[in-house]
């Protein structure tokens, strides 16, 4: 898995390259827009981490030209600016995601996985965080290296909760996702389902937030 790191800041560039290599990526680091342009044209990268404020050619320009060439490599924009305009502009130009500095390295890795997965479609059909994942093709849950088969409703429940790891879903939202139109839903159906899942995956796997609903810790 090769990642192209485009970053002009020496400190961030070096640490990020180091961290990425530590996480199993092989990282090529370029420091300006023009070099990024030629690296993108030559190399075959799984993912690009792109800073916006670059010497010689701005990050947005690099992105625009790459997309014009028909280059579909997933691009994750990293910037220290907090302008909403920058964010919308880069997403409009074809960035796959946007992360503001400073960021948690684990979050960066999760987002990188997500953009790569989105590009690859069904080939990489694992969704979820680091502790709990769901295999969309085999309909199995992956927890601590072990795989376990799920019933249709258990699968629907975990699918809903793992789509955006950490998001809180209310009882109503879960019911809508799990049960079809016109299907009779008993008042404690969700509780029973979650109780069963906790028995399989551990008590801490699905957490309740009083008054709001349930979530899976990413």
């Amino acid at each position, binding site marked *: 898995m090769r990642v192209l790191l485009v970053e002009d*800041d020496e*400190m*961030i560039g070096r*640490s*990020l390259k*180091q*961290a990425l290599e*530590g996480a199993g990526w092989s990282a090529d680091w370029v420091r300006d827009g023009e070099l990024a342009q030629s690296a993108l044209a030559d190399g075959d990268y799984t993912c690009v981490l792109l800073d916006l*404020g670059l010497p010689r050619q701005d990050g947005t320009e690099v992105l625009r030209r790459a997309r014009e060439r028909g280059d579909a490599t997933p691009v994750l924009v990293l910037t*220290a*600016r*907090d*302008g909403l305009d920058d964010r919308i502009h880069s997403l409009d130009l074809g960035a796959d995601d946007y992360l*503001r*500095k*400073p*960021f*948690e*390295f684990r979050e960066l890795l999760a987002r990188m996985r997500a953009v790569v997965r989105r590009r690859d479609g069904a080939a990489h059909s694992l969704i979820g965080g680091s502790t709990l994942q769901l295999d969309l093709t085999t309909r199995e849950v992956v927890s601590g290296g072990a795989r376990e088969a799920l019933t249709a409703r258990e699968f629907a429940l975990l699918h809903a909760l793992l789509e955006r790891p*950490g*998001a*809180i879903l*209310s009882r109503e939202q879960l019911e809508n996702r799990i049960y079809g139109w016109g299907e009779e839903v008993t008042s404690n159906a969700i509780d029973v389902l979650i109780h069963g899942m906790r028995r399989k995956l551990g008590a801490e796997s699905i957490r309740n*937030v*009083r*008054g*709001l609903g349930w*979530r899976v*810790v990413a």
Partner: protein
Amino acid sequence: MSPALSGTRWWRPRSLRTQLLFWLVTLHLVAAALTAWFTFVAYGDLVHNALDEQMRLVADSYAGGDPPRSPHPLDAEAAVTRGAFVVQLWSADGRTLRASSWPPLAAVPLHPEPGFSDANTGVHPHSHWRVFTAEAGPRADQPRVQVLQNEDYRRRRTMRRALLEGLPIALLLPLALLILWIIVSAASRSLRAVARDVASQDERSPTELSLARVPDEIAPLVHAFNHLLSRVRNAFATQRRFVQDAAHELRTPMAAIGLQIENLRAHVPAGEATERFNQLEAGVTRAQHLIEQLLSLSRQDAPGRATSREPVDIEALLRESVSQLMVLADARRVDIGFEGRVAPMVMAPPAELRSVFDNLIDNALRYAPEGGVVDVRLHAAEGHAVVDVLDNGPGIPGSSMGRVFDRFFRVPGAPAGGSGLGLAIARTAAERHGLRIELRNREDGSGLMARVHLPPPTAPLTPP
């Protein structure tokens, strides 16, 4: 306007309108009084002289007669009230009154010198008389003629005439004052319009005042004001750029430090080194939090940001806010709960409302003890919607209650790694959009309750 209270001298009140009106009305009244006085005196003289002339003609008509005519008899009413001429015919030596048209006036003797004089027959008001004594005729036996007219009648007549002449001035005076008042009021109205324009300015994005309806005298002031506004706008733009640059310059090294810490993690040996490493990481996290708070504070201060108001569902907003802060709740093992009994809408920019509730909930999560409880409740109190954020932390000592909204103020001995800016940011954002934050220590146990009073949904929000 009380001169003592306004600290100005009575002849120069602070209000231009009062000053103008005061002096214009005074001048008008003085001018009218002087005109009336001169008219009165001039017409008085005119009438006086005309009456004197008549007396002379009457006297001449008697003196020239040969044989002398005897005067028409008069009654008191004619002589005193109607001012008829009383004719006296005296003997040539002036000693004996031969004939008189009104005998009671015999008390006035023949004046030795010919010409006009005044006579007084007593003290009552009709006793003043104007007297004309004709010259003695060429023959020694010719009678002397003296004509008298009641002075009181003459005065009344003069007065009536003069008053009639002064009437137009008296009638014009109130009309002139009314016109003055209208003109001065119109001028001060245009000043008030300028003041209203200035007052309705948004301090974060001031716009130029229109010169269309400004009087020439005020135009330089408005020009100067517009010039000042454009300089203020430039200063604002500079400040905005500075905040953006500062954000970039501060976040970049923080991001690098965060990554280096991440890289170091795998190489830290267990034991004391790990503990020190964790302290270092906590310190960096705290510095990052402080920088983000500082940046959001300066973004709040930075003017001219386009903030579009839209109806915001507070319940949905609180759900999002709690979801996002679950990371902190998990880290501190705080049990956070939500309870929504009402579903109010508020017109405001969603991001600014988020900063109100994010900061309050963040605060509660930091001050609640490890493994504590935080409750977010949306309900109606005292007839309007409120959001309560409750923790079971130490609360705020009474001595610090007045200062907790100050920037960088942290309750002495507070354990939490806060920046001291959260409440200041929350309050600024709240006040800008008609919300009010009230803090009080819980009565049902230890802890703090932060209550946010939401604006009533129908009332128009006051502009920031």
